[in-house]
């Protein structure tokens, strides 16, 4: 089977399908073949081959009848698993959404909860004739930065399968990096799109809070949750965002602002744009190879005509503490819905309701989810609410003020996405705080609700104990400033074209 079509970006595949040069069925078959061959990377929890092929046939038939096709016609896409897909198993990486079965062996995500409706983003992708091929692996309930917290199996980095791909949208990033699909959806509560994109050499976009409907996203931290695209190139990500963005009356936090043509922003001149570089993001703890790559990318932006200037984001050092108080508090409330009554797992043989709740949740949640529910319950409990939760919400305001002040001086901010390249599987599993600390560069954009993306910059060179590994450049903008981020990222991409992991030929 010819899988080379999958080496083309999402926008180009759509144009080839729209013009009839390739069929949606052939692209979908190629994707299903690549997923099958790459299954040891653990990118997918559920693959929906028959459904995907049926959808692809329908796209091809409509083209044969002369109907106009959508802008994602025939583009196979992976969907992170907290995003509800009607009648298709959805687990969010957790056993709590896999009903108990007789003769049960290992919990199987294919037996997971079947949502009664599609998330708004799924309706929009399908409306643009994209092909949903399956549900992507993730840290359980989006809690984690390595995809090792998946209740089923970890995902592995195609650049070095002994390393993590990042998380929590690790499966989506692996699927795109390994060219199983040209684009995928992820969710980003504290960096969960941008960080795996950086560690796998893909493009990942967290839009402005409210830009993309969260209807049908299994909630983690509602004031911090975002859905966004991952793709092999900037323009592909822009096209997907143009499709999924926009007002949705079913999400009360959805913004009414009109959706610009993000793809048209790609390729626009960035001459004269002012780029802020905050010293706080280049502090101790930043790996030298990552710093060198990101500084090189900022120099490339300067050569493209941008004006680079230092800025101050003084709240940064409190990002991890602020974020983790707020996120766990919201999580402990959101996760109360998993109680064994209406869907998913119910622990057996308990004769009163409260005991059934506790047994179900004790059996269904993994260690990191339990830790965050416990922390969240603690920081919201009587006597601690003011000291932790309310105080963190007030410090959160300082992040907004930092960015508001910065964006009076500059058009965008350039930083690293992560302090280090992908680490080894198992390396940080027993040190939750160390795992949290590595999120420091991505958390502020979630706290402030501003758009941010990760675009690959020069990889960290191979050393004696590791191969060449991807590094991401983070670009942040003011609210609804996605267009300028796409302009900057696509301009930068011309100086640093997308690379494929070794073995993805």
């Amino acid at each position, binding site marked *: 089977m010819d899988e080379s079509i999958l080496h083309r970006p999402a926008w180009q595949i759509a144009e080839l399908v729209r013009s009839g040069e390739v069929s949606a069925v052939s692209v979908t078959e190629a994707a299903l073949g690549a997923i099958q061959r790459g299954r040891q990377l653990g990118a997918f929890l559920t693959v929906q081959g028959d459904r995907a092929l049926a959808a692809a046939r329908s796209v091809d038939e409509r083209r044969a009848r002369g109907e106009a096709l959508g802008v994602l016609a025939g583009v196979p896409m992976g969907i992170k698993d907290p995003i509800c897909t009607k009648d298709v198993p959805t687990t969010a990486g957790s056993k709590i959404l896999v009903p108990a079965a007789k003769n049960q062996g290992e919990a199987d995500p294919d037996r997971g909860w079947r949502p009664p409706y599609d998330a708004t983003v799924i309706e929009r992708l399908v409306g643009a004739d994209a092909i949903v091929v399956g549900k992507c692996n993730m840290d359980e309930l989006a809690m984690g930065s390595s995809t090792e917290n998946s209740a089923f199996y970890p995902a592995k980095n195609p650049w070095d399968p002994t390393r993590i791909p990042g998380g929590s949208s690790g499966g989506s990033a692996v699927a795109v990096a390994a060219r199983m699909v040209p684009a995928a959806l992820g969710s980003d509560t504290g960096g969960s799109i941008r960080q795996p994109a950086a560690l796998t050499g893909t493009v990942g976009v967290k839009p402005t809070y409210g830009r993309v409907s969260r209807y049908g996203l299994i909630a983690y931290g509602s004031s911090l949750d975002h859905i966004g695209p991952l793709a092999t190139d900037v323009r592909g990500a822009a096209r997907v965002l143009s499709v999924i963005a926009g007002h949705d009356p079913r999400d009360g936090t959805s913004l009414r602002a009109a959706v610009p043509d993000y793809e048209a922003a790609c390729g626009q001149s960035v001459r004269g744009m002012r780029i802020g570089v905050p010293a706080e993001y280049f502090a101790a703890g930043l790996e030298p190879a990552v710093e060198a790559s990101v500084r090189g990318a900022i120099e490339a932006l300067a050569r493209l005509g941008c004006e680079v200037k230092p800025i101050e984001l003084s709240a940064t050092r409190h990002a991890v503490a602020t974020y983790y108080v707020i996120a766990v508090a919201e999580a402990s409330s959101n996760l109360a819905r998993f109680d064994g009554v209406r*869907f998913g797992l119910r622990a057996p043989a308990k004769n009163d*309701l*409260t005991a059934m709740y506790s047994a179900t*949740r004790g059996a269904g949640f993994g260690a990191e989810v*339990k830790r965050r529910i*416990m922390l969240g319950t603690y920081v919201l409990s009587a006597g601690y609410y003011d000291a932790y939760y309310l105080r963190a*919400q007030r410090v959160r305001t300082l992040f907004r003020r930092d960015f508001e002040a910065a964006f009076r001086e500059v058009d965008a901010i350039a930083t690293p996405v992560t302090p280090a390249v992908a680490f080894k599987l198992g390396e940080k599993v027993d040190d939750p705080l160390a795992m949290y600390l590595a999120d420091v560069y991505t958390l502020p954009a979630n706290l402030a609700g501003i758009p941010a993306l990760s675009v690959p910059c020069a990889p960290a060179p191979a050393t004696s104990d590791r191969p060449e590994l991807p590094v991401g450049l983070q670009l942040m903008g003011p*609210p609804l400033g996605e267009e300028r981020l796409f302009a900057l990222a696509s301009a930068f991409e011309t100086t640093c074209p997308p690379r494929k992991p070794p073995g993805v030929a």
Partner: protein
Amino acid sequence: MATDDPPRISHDEVRRIAQLAHLDLPAHEVDRMARDLGQILAYMEQLREVDVTGVPATSHGDEVGIVPRPDEEAASLPHEIALREAPSVEDGGFRVPAFADEG
């Protein structure tokens, strides 16, 4: 944050929080949970140092432009679909164990 700080969360407190969270925690997980929570909460203590005098709380990234939708009648989930994934169903409703007498 130094890991040799004395744990600030006792085993009893872990069990109390677990009860509030409706979370069965086996005995062998209590000690680990107490250590993890203690370490993470010790790190979060830094928020006390931040001067937030006169600073209001932010509850959302963007609170501008959020408008409630009109309160209009609309179709809802069909009954049988709402029940189809339930672990236990009886008489057209979700079946649950008896309520404990907590009085």
